[in-house]
């Protein structure tokens, strides 16, 4: 019986392997891009979604007035051109007369007006509403002209408009209440099918003003485990994939048929201190923590070398050289002295919260920080939390310290006004503001001259690093991996996949 059984088992496994390989060898679809990601979109309303995958999906379907290119310059999208009035109180856009929604209906200034009215309506619950509060009125002199009247000069509003959260949706769909259920946009693709947490199918929007797309469609599969994504790429079953975990991404270059696209993102890894709690209310304690941290070591160990030391400002146009910022070179002796001066020569205990898997390196970062801060007597207790539980605690400011990865913006004002101005919506999270920070932010908001803005925000950054309410650590990379048969993808620091519209595939 023993032999029969072994024999049976072996033939069973052989059959299974055969079945696997028999169906695996299906040829690649003619010119459909097969894409994979681990996290699916969570909804279809472009003005309300904030999840990374939702934004990436919706950027292929909808268009804002303007968008950011790979160098973070504002370039035309639905609008061909734009102009601020000399007093900075009106902003006028000329729309592309060829722009059409996928329903075949032209995009007019009335759609733009209705879209922004929807964002500003509190009942919509658009999180980005906060960026558009300076809009006091809108005029539509003709179908291709829209004039925004501003209550005060607001230079960053143009960049705020360059996100998919400010997408232009059809006025008729707003009236019908179908935004979020039907995805009708003016972007390169239209959504044919969406099975949440499983798959999406996109086909080209024949009415797209940008012309013909490079592929006949995109199918997106949700493969929750990034190791499985890598396996699928390796087996040639997936053409293009988003990766989040640096440990997986660093394996891609070892594969001869794969290419890794790596671009420094605007998001930043940070150790948030809570200055409303003792002893983090003490400037010297916060500075001691900043001095005790070795940022490069955190990158080398927790991020397997995948990251760059950063100050508060992550956008290349504004970022200062981190070495010019307060205590960016580890100085344990100075840290110990600061602790002693603050009356904490023997250190103290604190809890640091971190979210499981978000980012994937959060727990390793917390562990390295734990060992580095132990050198100056700070005993960190690491508390890992499910993402939603973490977000809840974070929003309430209910933590001593938090390891976080916060999103960046191409402009310093929308990036930090929520945390470090006197009326910031997230002041409860940062628990820190002073007159210098608030003053510099307001100055930067009104200033339209780029050189002067840069000077203002450099002062802001230096002051923020010195006050150390948070300890900024690193920017990480955003990754996409692709087969070498995919051509023309241009990665962007914003993470957008918009250039998939021009991607082509080898047959």
């Amino acid at each position: 019986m023993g032999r029969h059984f072994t024999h049976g088992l072996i033939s069973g496994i052989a059959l299974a392997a055969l079945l696997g390989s028999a169906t695996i060898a299906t040829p690649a679809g003619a010119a459909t891009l097969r894409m994979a990601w681990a996290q699916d979109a969570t909804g279809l309303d472009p003005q309300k979604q904030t999840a990374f995958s939702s934004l990436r999906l919706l950027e292929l379907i909808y268009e804002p007035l303007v968008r950011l290119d790979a160098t973070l310059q504002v370039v035309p999208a639905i609008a061909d051109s734009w102009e601020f009035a000399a007093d900075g109180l009106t902003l006028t856009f000329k729309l592309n007369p060829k722009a059409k929604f996928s329903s075949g209906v032209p995009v007019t200034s009335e759609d733009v007006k209705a879209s922004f009215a929807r964002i500003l309506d509190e009942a919509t619950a658009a999180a980005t509403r906060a960026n558009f509060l300076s809009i006091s009125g809108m005029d539509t002199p003709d179908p291709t002209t829209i004039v925004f009247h501003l209550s005060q000069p607001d230079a960053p509003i143009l960049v705020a408009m360059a996100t998919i959260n400010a997408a232009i949706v059809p006025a008729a769909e707003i009236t019908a209440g179908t935004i979020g259920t039907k995805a009708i946009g003016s972007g390169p693709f239209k959504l044919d099918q969406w099975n949440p947490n499983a798959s999406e199918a996109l086909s080209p929007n024949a009415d797209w003003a940008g012309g013909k797309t490079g592929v006949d469609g995109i199918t997106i599969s949700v493969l929750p485990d990034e190791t499985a994504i890598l396996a699928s790429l390796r087996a040639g079953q997936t053409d293009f994939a988003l990766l989040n975990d640096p440990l997986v991404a660093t394996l891609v270059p070892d594969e001869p048929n794969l290419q890794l696209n790596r671009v420094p993102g605007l998001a930043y890894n940070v150790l948030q201190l809570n200055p409303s709690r003792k002893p983090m209310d003490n400037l010297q304690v916060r500075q001691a923590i900043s001095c005790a941290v070795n940022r490069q070591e955190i990158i080398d160990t927790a991020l397997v070398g995948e990251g760059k030391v950063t100050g508060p400002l992550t956008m290349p146009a504004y970022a200062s050289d981190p070495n010019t910022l307060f205590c960016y070179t580890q100085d344990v002796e100075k840290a110990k002295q600061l602790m002693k001066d603050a009356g904490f020569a023997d250190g103290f205990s604190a809890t640091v919260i971190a979210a499981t898997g978000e980012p994937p390196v959060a727990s390793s970062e917390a562990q390295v920080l734990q060992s580095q801060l132990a050198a100056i007597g700070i005993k960190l207790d690491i508390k890992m939390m499910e993402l939603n539980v973490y977000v809840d605690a974070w929003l309430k400011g209910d933590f001593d310290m938090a390891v976080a990865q916060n999103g960046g913006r191409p402009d310093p004002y929308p990036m930090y006004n929520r945390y470090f101005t006197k009326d910031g919506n997230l002041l409860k999270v940062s628990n820190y503001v002073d007159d210098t920070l608030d003053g510099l932010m307001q100055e930067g908001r009104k200033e339209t001259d780029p050189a002067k803005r840069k000077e203002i925000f450099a002062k802001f950054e230096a002051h923020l690093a010195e006050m150390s309410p948070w300890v900024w650590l690193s920017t990480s990379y955003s990754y996409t991996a692709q087969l070498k048969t995919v051509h023309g993808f241009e990665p962007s620091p914003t993470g957008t996949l918009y250039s998939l519209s021009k991607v082509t595939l080898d047959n």
Partner: protein
Amino acid sequence: MNYLTQRLATFPLILLGVSVLVFVSIRLIPGDAITAMLGTEAGLLTPDQRASLAAYFGIDQPIYLQYGRWLVGLFSGDLGISVTYGRPVLAVILERFPLTLELALLSMVIALCVGIPAGVLAATRNEGPADLGIRVLAMLGQSTPSFVVGLVIIFVLSVVFGAVPPMGIFTPIYVNPLVNLSQLIFPAITLGFAFAASVTRISRSAMLDVLSDDYVRTARSKGASARSVIWRHAFPNALIPVVTLSGIEFGYLLGGAVIVEQIFALPGIGRLVLDAISQRDYALVEGCVLFIALNFLIVNLLVDLAYAALDPRIRLGGR
């Protein structure tokens, strides 16, 4: 009242208990549908914006009112609408269930086909090399987590064979049985590995028990062949613990194999519940858990009925 009716009568009570537990516990976890949708950006909402979203998600009322409303819906066969899918909860669950059922059946077939012969073989060669070998393998099977087995399988397939089963988009069996099988066979092996190990161990010990019984000795002394003694006389009586174990395991598998579904990107019940919890899709969590509990109750009932069929000495209902 006969046994079956008695058991069926307890179902609604158990399900009601389960529903209250789930309803309360999912709402006790910090974070809600709004933070699940917006993440940290939820902090930018004004109180009015928040209220409008809370009304949309149906979490603007006190918890007992929410539960009452849900319960009224339940009696009219309405489990509510999933906010993630924008469709009735029951429809979403029924769409995912065939995959889970198929995977559970396939794993069970693998487990029984491998586990029972291996267990019986080990018992008949008690303390011999075959027995030791099988016991070591069974121990390994039970102690290796399924994510390790799953990842090793994927790694071997993609690195050694350069091919993996089509992942992400699931093909139902009626569309293309071959592709369907290729998508499910490796997850089923992953699950079946641990399942087979338990079946092996339990059938081995049950067989050892039975083989030392008097009637087996009698059968042997009457000159029955070794094959007939094992399979005709001893085996049927060793089946009861195997059926119990398989029933419980099968019941678990019908609740979805979260980790294996996650690794092999299978849209089954396990992933549905996991995603529903992380997206705080309350109606869907509630619906799924009720559905899983009902499955478990039915499987348990079938196991109990199977006892009576396997062993005429067992009378159900305590009489």
